[in-house]
């Protein structure tokens, strides 16, 4: 089939798509967007997490045929050109990236969390990231990164002059 859908705000097309292949395969192998990672292909690791119509989902569990006409947001869509998004910067600054394989999925999951909840508690962060596995960091730095991103985002959204950037 020819698959037409929106990726990071742009309409994209892919030809000769097998409807039963995963959205993850379409993104990586057909559209040249290797940000979303393939580690398990069974929904366990979260490294393929993308937005599907604004809701985080495992791209490996969405059939290509299901995304026709829909909107997908990938980790590549977080940055504004060369300017990293607050969540991305926080992951770098907090040392939450080691091998980096889990990072794209965590960035999407963390972005979604702080969009919904600008001051997440530690329990809420843990619960929101429970679908993302990291084999390197031991998660503490990831917790730091999400707290930092939430702080920075709420202070940059806040127009009060006494609240400088963290």
């Amino acid at each position, binding site marked *: 089939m020819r698959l037409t859908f929106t990726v990071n705000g742009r309409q994209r097309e892919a030809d000769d798509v097998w409807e*039963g292949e995963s959205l993850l395969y379409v993104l990586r192998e057909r559209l040249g967007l290797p940000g979303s990672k393939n580690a398990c292909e069974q929904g366990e690791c979260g490294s393929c997490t993308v937005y599907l119509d604004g809701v985080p989902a495992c791209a490996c569990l969405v059939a290509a045929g299901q995304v026709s006409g829909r909107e997908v947001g990938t980790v590549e869509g977080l940055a504004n050109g060369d300017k990293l998004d607050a969540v991305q910067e926080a992951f770098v600054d907090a040392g939450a990236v080691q091998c980096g394989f889990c990072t794209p999925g965590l960035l999407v999951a963390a972005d979604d969390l702080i969009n919904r909840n600008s001051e997440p508690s530690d329990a809420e962060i843990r*619960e929101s990231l429970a679908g993302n596995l990291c084999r390197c960091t031991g998660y503490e730095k990831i917790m730091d990164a999400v707290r930092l991103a939430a702080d920075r985002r709420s202070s940059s959204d806040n127009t009060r002059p006494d609240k400088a950037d963290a």
Partner: protein
Amino acid sequence: MDFLRPASWRDALEAKANHPDATPIAGGTDIMVEINFDHRRPATLLDMTGIDELANWSEHAGRLRIGAGLPYTRLINELGDRLPGLAIAARTVGSPQIRNRGTLGGNLASASPAGDGHPPLLASGAEVEVESVRGVRMLAMEEFFTGVKRHALAPDELISAVHIAPATGAQQFSKIGTRNAMVIAVCTFALSLHPEQQRVGTGLGSAAPTPRRAPEAEDFLSAELADSGQWTSPRPLADSVVRHFGELVARAASPIDDVRSTAEYRTHALSVMARRTLGWVWDEHRRQHSSNHPSNDHTGRSECA
């Protein structure tokens, strides 16, 4: 592969009638794993996610009708206050990403003995609405499951909805696994109080070839509570009652040894979960009762046995 994308429920039923071998795909969280690993190569997929009405819920005559395609996240957010037992179970499914896509319809049709949606539906006397171009059938939860990963759907039928009464009393769900997130249950137990019927409902998961109730345990506890007038003036439950309830729940199971656990552990765990959930729901029942009828509250807020 044929990929059918009906835009309405009517079209979906016609597609299923014309292609009885078509495999429905909703959230894909069960079926895509099988396709990715080449365990299954359906000749035809029937996409349920383009049918808006399947992801809705409504209320008629005191019962909720939950569309088979409503993802767990929305079920929790929109119906959690009216269906606390089902919401607790839904919160234990997979991870946020899985709950954003996975549906009750998919959980039912997969018919895994470990499906977390099933025990609370059993405990609340839910019914499954199935439909084909030939018409609608309502199946009691007990009739729906026919064996391990087998159900009562005819080849041309699809699950349209689940019908369930909003909670009238306390409800609980307990699940044992190796961690809180992302585990297939070792075993599960759901308990619902139905004070208006003076009945107790139960549901056991991962405890037998199909999810099932524990009818003897339900009858014993319902009778015990009614005979001692406990529905209207609840007091702490006697230890012996709680213990016997746990034993009867465990006796209703016929578990197996598998990679996740032994039959022996499952049987033991079920009796513990039954006692604990009973403690929780009974505490809540007494709290609700003392706030509704403060004059009946002779015992204050003392702990349940």
